[in-house]
């Protein structure tokens, strides 16, 4: 009899469905149930670094905004440290590095307020340009989609980023770059996510 490997299989994914807000953002579904909803504050008031707003749309294959998406963000602090015990270094008190937002039911716009992350050491001593990992779930999406948001004004760091450079089609790399602007004295990065088609955002199997 052959020897057994005895690994379990990962539980298969299913779509989050149209009512994901009930579980993960009940306030948006129209009712209050928890003392605190999770994911409202990525960086906390004590975090060092530039305060930024990141916003955009999620667009389907027809070109229409998707209005029932839930996005989660995961990022390092301004010094490039993740709020996780396996990543060397300390983060500011209250810095969680994780946020959760939903798209507006009417417009499809999403946004979160955070600080701009610092560069993080990647594999083999290669520095990764500042980036925010994003995870997108919604009705019609069977397995959550992973992507990365990079910053337009980090062109030099982006040019040597080992993940961006993995993308063989140079034309597709720009889909990961958020555009910087100023609005009412605040720095805003625009990042529209295109699920399908010509300008389809690069998604990763991480």
């Amino acid at each position, binding site marked *: 009899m052959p020897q057994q490997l005895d690994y379990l299989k*990962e539980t298969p*994914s299913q779509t989050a*469905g149209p009512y994901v807000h009930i579980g993960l953002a009940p306030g948006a*579904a129209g009712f209050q149930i928890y003392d605190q909803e999770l994911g409202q504050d990525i960086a906390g008031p004590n975090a060092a670094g530039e305060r930024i707003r990141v916003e955009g749309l999620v667009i389907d294959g027809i070109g229409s905004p998707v209005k029932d998406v839930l996005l989660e963000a995961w990022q*390092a602090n301004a010094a490039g440290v*993740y709020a996780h015990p396996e990543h060397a270094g300390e983060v500011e008190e209250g810095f969680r590095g994780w946020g959760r937002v939903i798209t507006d039911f009417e417009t499809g716009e999403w946004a979160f307020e955070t600080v701009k992350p610092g560069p993080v*050491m*990647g594999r083999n001593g290669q520095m990764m340009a500042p980036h925010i990992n994003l995870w997108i779930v919604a009705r019609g999406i069977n397995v959550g989609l992973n992507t990365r948001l990079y910053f337009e004004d980090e062109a030099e760091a982006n040019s040597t980023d080992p993940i961006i450079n993995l993308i063989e089609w140079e034309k597709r790399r720009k889909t990961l770059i958020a555009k910087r602007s100023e609005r009412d004295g605040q720095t805003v990065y625009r990042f529209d996510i295109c699920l399908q088609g010509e300008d389809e955002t690069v*998604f*990763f199997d991480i």
Partner: protein
Amino acid sequence: MTKPNQTMAEYYQRDRRWHPPAYAKDYKTSVARSPKFSLISLENTPSEITGPRFGHNDIAPTDNDLISNYAQPGESPIGERIIVHGRVLDENARPVPNTLVEIWQANAGGRYRHKKDTYLAPIDPNFGGCGRTITDENGYYYFRTVKPGAYPWRNWVNDWRPAHIHVSVFGSAFAQRLITQLYFEGDPLIKTCPIVATIPDPDAIEQLIARLDMNATIPLDTIAYKFDIVLRGRRSTLFENRLEGN
């Protein structure tokens, strides 16, 4: 670096043929919401092997009791009282302790407490339909709720979702993040559902079906179902660790 390289190990590759594909034509919404290009595969970096941590300060101890967490004092929701319990494990069969598990569901009639749900079955005034908990040191979790009802949805004209509870789990890395759905043993709608059928392998579908658990059932009170969740496992780095680059 103050921590040993050993802890920076990578996660096993996700088996994309075990999970549903992005494009599944019988689940109509996936047609315009699935990327046409292939995913770009990455070797894990610190951005993927880290992830958010949650503690007991983040949630209330009663957040796992859907029978009481939205009920008026002295009242409770209408429906079949159930316990859903199990363990969160990784592919190495090791427990995943202290991880956040969140659930949401319709009420006993298949109606969600959501402003976008217009199904004619009524809202239950004593039922919210969401809960959350943190696994203990052994990866164990439990919820108390009512069994959700089936409900119709606009896919084909007579499609009905099997009774299900949506489940969200974090694990300890962003690479382990998972949302899925729990179904109930013996439900004949499981075989007809286009969302279930996005999963190609019948054994993978079996993994989403909670089993009736008479041993955990509380006599004269609440029926129990057991549902174990498996997250991606992690390599032991035996010879080298290129993740650290040294």
